[in-house]
């Protein structure tokens, strides 16, 4: 039983641990790299020398029936635009989503691994992890990526889940050491995060309905794109708009592009008049 060909014996329900033990080459943040001297000058005693995510704004905010998560579409390489249509908000499972800021490759890899992780647990155990359990697991994955941070490859997630027990949407932010902090109303990360947070602070009210909350989120992204070169605003010429997902007791749904476009068109028309 212990040495079935093709099927290695393994205990535990974590796909992440399974990869680490049996296929370390597939695990993000290859550990050998961590032995190399840091590629970037890092002085832990001086704040500001640890590389922080750049070129992104992703945000999350709660509304009456759950939470909304949204992000811009721009990826940059230095002063060049690398991609205009990159997707930064990922569906993780039926009741949660995450958005990412940081180095695109490792970010997408982490999102994919986290999706597999949750589905794997659900299939093995027959039940879903709790909302809190999912958020903690993501924290451990961010922590495992710490060696890569010293190579300049930061992955910074923002996680949104619908807690079926508490009947509410929840927002979690992280730091590079895997620290996990719950936000009560709204949060935004990335290079334009500060600008988005200012907008949300002004316009956010507890208990907003879905439409109003979506408008606040999209306005925050618009303002962030206005102030931050790394964040892409709505591109009317090419027809590229930020993406958003809504998490509620009914599960997760994508906000259709037509709805985002309509909201932006109204917003822009109002600004023109004034």
């Amino acid at each position: 039983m212990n040495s079935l060909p093709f099927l290695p014996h393994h205990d535990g329900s974590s796909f992440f641990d399974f990869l680490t033990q049996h296929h370390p080459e597939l695990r993000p943040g290859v550990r050998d790299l961590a032995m190399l001297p840091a590629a970037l000058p890092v002085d832990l005693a001086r704040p500001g020398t640890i590389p922080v995510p750049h070129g992104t704004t992703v945000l999350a905010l709660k509304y009456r029936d759950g939470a909304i998560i949204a992000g811009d579409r721009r990826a940059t390489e230095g002063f060049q635009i690398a991609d205009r249509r990159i997707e930064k908000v990922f569906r993780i499972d039926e009741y949660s989503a995450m958005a990412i800021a940081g180095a695109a490759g490792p970010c997408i890899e982490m999102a994919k691994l986290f999706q597999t992780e949750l589905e794997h647990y659900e299939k093995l155990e027959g039940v879903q992890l709790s909302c809190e359990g999912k958020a903690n697991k993501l924290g451990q994955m961010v922590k495992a990526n710490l060696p890569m941070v010293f190579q300049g490859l930061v992955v910074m997630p923002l996680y949104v889940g619908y807690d079926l027990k508490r009947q509410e949407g929840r927002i979690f932010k992280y730091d590079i050491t895997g620290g996990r902090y719950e936000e009560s109303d709204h949060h935004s990360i990335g290079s334009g995060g500060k600008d988005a947070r200012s907008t949300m602070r002004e316009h956010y009210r507890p208990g907003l309905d879905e439409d109003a909350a979506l408008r606040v989120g999209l306005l925050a992204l618009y303002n962030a794109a206005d102030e931050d070169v790394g964040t892409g605003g709505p591109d009317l010429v090419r027809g590229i708009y930020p993406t958003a997902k809504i998490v509620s007791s009914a599960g997760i749904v994508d906000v259709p592009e037509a709805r985002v476009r309509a909201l932006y068109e109204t917003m822009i028309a109002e600004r023109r008049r004034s």
Partner: protein
Amino acid sequence: MPLPYYVSPEQMMQDKAEYAKKGIAKGRSIIALEYVDGIVLAADNPSSSLHKVSEVYDRIAFAGAGKYSEFEHLRKAGIRHADLTGYMYSREDVSARTLSNAYSQSLGTAFSTDVKPLEVEILVVQVGVNGQANEIFRISFDGSIADEKSFAVIGGRSEAVQQYLREHATPEPPSLQDGLRRCRSALEQVATQKIPSENLEVAVLDRHRQGRKFRRLTSADISHLLA
């Protein structure tokens, strides 16, 4: 030093096979039956938490008969195998055929090398989407693998259940309701008693579902369908 007794390989294999067959026949049967929207899996299982049928991947389900600890181990190994393939390549590259081959290899090796063979019989089924055909693989304790059409039965008195299903087969796949009723009648006939709907474990692979096709029917769903 006394010489160990000589046992011919034929005799050894026969003994092992008999031992495994006996263990599998002790349990109750599980049926996989094609219906109009996919595949329905029905098991006579009084426990509502120890499952015999489970999801493996988007289009693939697993059913195990025999010794619980042994097929549970195989189920978990299969999920790991499928998730690893899907993570490494792509979700559409996970197939029932590859998985069945892996199971067949493992069971075959265990049968010929281990002292005690695994007392299990398993089903790996895959629902066909976009006009593809469904696939039903039955894998026995010795690693032999069979590609079944329209239905398959494992565990318990599987021959008798198969006989019933063969006699009541229809040229077109039945609706979910008719299919499930047929499964229950087949199981009842072998059990020679009524099987209440809460003793049935039922799951479907429905090709019209988005994403993951597997759905476990609640006891309310089952009694509604069988009413």
